[in-house]
């Protein structure tokens, strides 16, 4: 178990790093603080990267005026739905195909092809199918999340130890019981690896969907701001989403710890 001291130290390093990053951001984009480095003049840096102080005041404004809640709510719901649907679909489909070799062989090229399609280009078609509301953004997010989870679950199921599988079958496990008691638990760490990855992409799906066409959501705000070169608002939106992505990830990590209790951890003796 990690001591309290080292956890504190960890947090300290992280916060120092964060502060350092913001400081660098501030210095590099402030026209007066430093001779310009990357760009010919620092105004240009501020034009592309915004200025952290303005970004924060934007964030503050949003929350103080309450303007952001509606947009944030929409984006979060879209993300959560995309995440949930994509994950369930990916797990279900992955479990099914991994256990149905013929179907897997037949569908294999189609899945690969679907995964290789540039979804952004298909966004208009999604809008036709799912309308301009949340559904089309959710759909875009689902296409991102689904494949990641799917590929991992598919492989995870195939990696099940053959002896454990044979044993469970000899013990009389039905295909359903095998799924529930063998394949799923065994593929769990694969699932979690893909979840960490796909949380981020669920957000990306929602935001890009809004960016491509919508009337509300954080992606809409970002799009509006880009149209008038208000890069600070763009970054404020991105920071906000990132913060929520981290919160969601943390929830997944809690689940993961809970489900992965059985795994051996290093150094299990207690110090006396």
């Amino acid at each position: 178990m990690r001591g309290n001291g080292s956890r504190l130290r960890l947090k300290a390093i992280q916060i120092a790093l964060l502060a350092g990053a913001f400081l660098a951001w501030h210095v590099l984009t402030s026209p007066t603080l430093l001779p310009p480095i990357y760009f010919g003049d620092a105004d240009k840096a501020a034009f592309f990267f915004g200025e952290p102080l303005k970004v924060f005041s934007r964030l503050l404004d949003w929350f103080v005026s309450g303007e952001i809640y509606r947009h944030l709510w929409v984006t979060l719901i879209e993300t959560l739905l995309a995440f949930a649907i994509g994950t369930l679909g990916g797990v279900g489909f992955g479990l099914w195909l991994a256990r149905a070799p013929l179907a897997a062989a037949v569908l294999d090229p189609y899945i690969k092809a679907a995964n290789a399609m540039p979804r952004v280009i298909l966004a208009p078609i999604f809008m036709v199918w799912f309308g301009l509301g949340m559904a089309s953004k959710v759909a875009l997010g689902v296409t991102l999340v689904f494949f990641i989870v799917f590929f991992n679950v598919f492989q995870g199921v195939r990696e099940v130890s053959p002896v454990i599988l044979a044993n469970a079958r000899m013990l009389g496990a039905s295909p359903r019981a095998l799924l529930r008691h063998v394949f799923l638990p065994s593929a769990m760490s694969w699932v979690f690896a893909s979840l960490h990855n796909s949380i981020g992409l669920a957000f990306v799906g929602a935001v890009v969907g809004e960016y491509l066409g919508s009337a509300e959501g954080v992606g809409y705000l970002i799009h509006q701001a880009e149209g008038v070169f208000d890069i600070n608002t763009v970054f404020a939106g991105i920071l906000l989403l990132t913060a929520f992505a981290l919160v969601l990830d943390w929830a997944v990590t809690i689940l993961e710890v809970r489900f992965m209790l059985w795994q051996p951890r290093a150094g299990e003796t207690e110090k006396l």
Partner: protein
Amino acid sequence: GKIEKPQVHIAVGGKAAFYYLPLTIAEQLGYFRDEGLEVKISDFAGGSAALRSVVGGSADVVSGAYEHTINLQSKKQIFQAFVEMGRAPQIAVGVSTAKAASFKSFSDLKGMKIGVSAPGSSTNMLVNLIGAKGGLKSTDFSIIGVGTGAGVVAAMKSGQIDAVSNVDPVMTMLERDGAVKIIADTRTLKVTQEVFGGPMPAAVLYAPIEFVKKNPKTVQALTNAIVRADRWLQTASTNDILKTVPEAYLLGDKDLYLLSYGKVKEAISTDGYIADEGTTTALKALSTFNPKIIPSEIKLELTYTNEFVKKAHQKYK
């Protein structure tokens, strides 16, 4: 009588742009509400994406460029424009200051890398047209899609493109920073006339012809609101405008906004009428640019109507 469809969903590609200023004004001043409409405006990454959402049926009315109705007709989609918001395309073409010294005529575009908002869009079309005036074919220069946002500035200032054809506020920004020299400016009526050989209707509201037929009262209400906005803009002071548009639109840079507004003011429609002559100009321009559009196959009379505008003027004398 009662409005058939009080809830109208308008799709627009880049709502914050000056191109669609009357729409924003009508929304902000409550003109739609005054007409008994409940309007929802969805913003898209680009004009073609916006119109596709209407073709697909997820929105009702497009706020977009008139020439799309012609384009769409060549794809067997009959759309009709019913009120005008802009009477010039508001596109400007500029060459980088580095090349400006040696730039004498349009024929000097030869061999240049020219940034447009998207290949195949009106910005691209304008480049082709002025290139043709200089005796160039579309293969004599290379077209690069750079969008309408910060990417344009990035591409221009880092010297990755030699010339740019784009809309405001990008063009004004580049101009102000001294990054480009304007060589063609369709934000003015005069140059528009010269380049296109006639007036060129730009931003309009258009909808599937069945929608117009089925919901005349709704269309009338929309037209009324836009005509009022057009007229309001003719008399409004800059201060009025600053107060009316959403604050977010200005946040980037207020001075820039006003500077830019000064440039495009002339291009805003005064009365909402779509000039008959303008529609032929548009068809001619399109067909030289896109060989798939055959003028004889396009029924121009289906692409627009001024009836609603006429009635609007009767209502708001």
